[in-house]
């Protein structure tokens, strides 16, 4: 792993179009700013792990596991 020391306000450039800025350091917390292409997914790691677990759980659902659902009541949007 590449390890770089940065002070608040300093940046790291990844490739052509990603810039990571250390915004503020306060005690045990660092605020990080990330400028990247909009379509690039950026996750906090623990959320990424949680989403991965949900995706894998959904992919484990059997074809006949889903119960019938009553049709939406009149007037509700589709």
């Amino acid at each position, binding site marked *: 792993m590449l390890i770089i020391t940065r002070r608040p306000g300093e940046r790291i450039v990844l490739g052509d179009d990603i810039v990571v800025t250390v915004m503020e350091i306060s005690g045990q917390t660092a605020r990080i700013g990330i400028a990247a292409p909009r*379509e*690039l*997914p950026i*996750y906090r790691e623990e*959320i*990424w792990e*949680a*989403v*991965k*677990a*949900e*995706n*894998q*759980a*959904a*992919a484990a*659902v*059997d*074809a006949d*596991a*889903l*119960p019938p*659902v*009553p*049709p*939406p009541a009149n007037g*509700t*949007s*589709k």
Partner: protein
Amino acid sequence: VSTTIDSTRFGRIEVAPDSAIVFPHGLAGLDSRTFTLIARAQDDAFVWLHSLEDPALALPLADPRRFFSGFALEPAPAEGAAIYVTVRASERIEEFTANLRAPLVIADGIGQQVINEAPDAELRAPLFAELAAAAAEQAA
């Protein structure tokens, strides 16, 4: 020209080429990038996001607004994009959940799983809670 999938769940399925949905960045924890949506019945509450690359990979999806009246996605997606949430099944209906925290946004054949920054977007929102409450109210 159409593609066929020999789905482990649904058997042989014909897929029109223009119905492919590409997730350029994939889906966390899954290996496919090219999928299609399969509806098993007209007006079914669920559709399946089926891989075109792996016949065993398919995820049930739901329209979040059909199950969660207060559903909101922040930041808001592009106008006209379809929004789905993944469904986690269980033996007990009360334990079915939907992932409101990471909806799938699909537009023009391109899909993306986004993080919903809305404060009440639960990772495991009870899927049938509102329907059960409505049914209980009707019975009372």
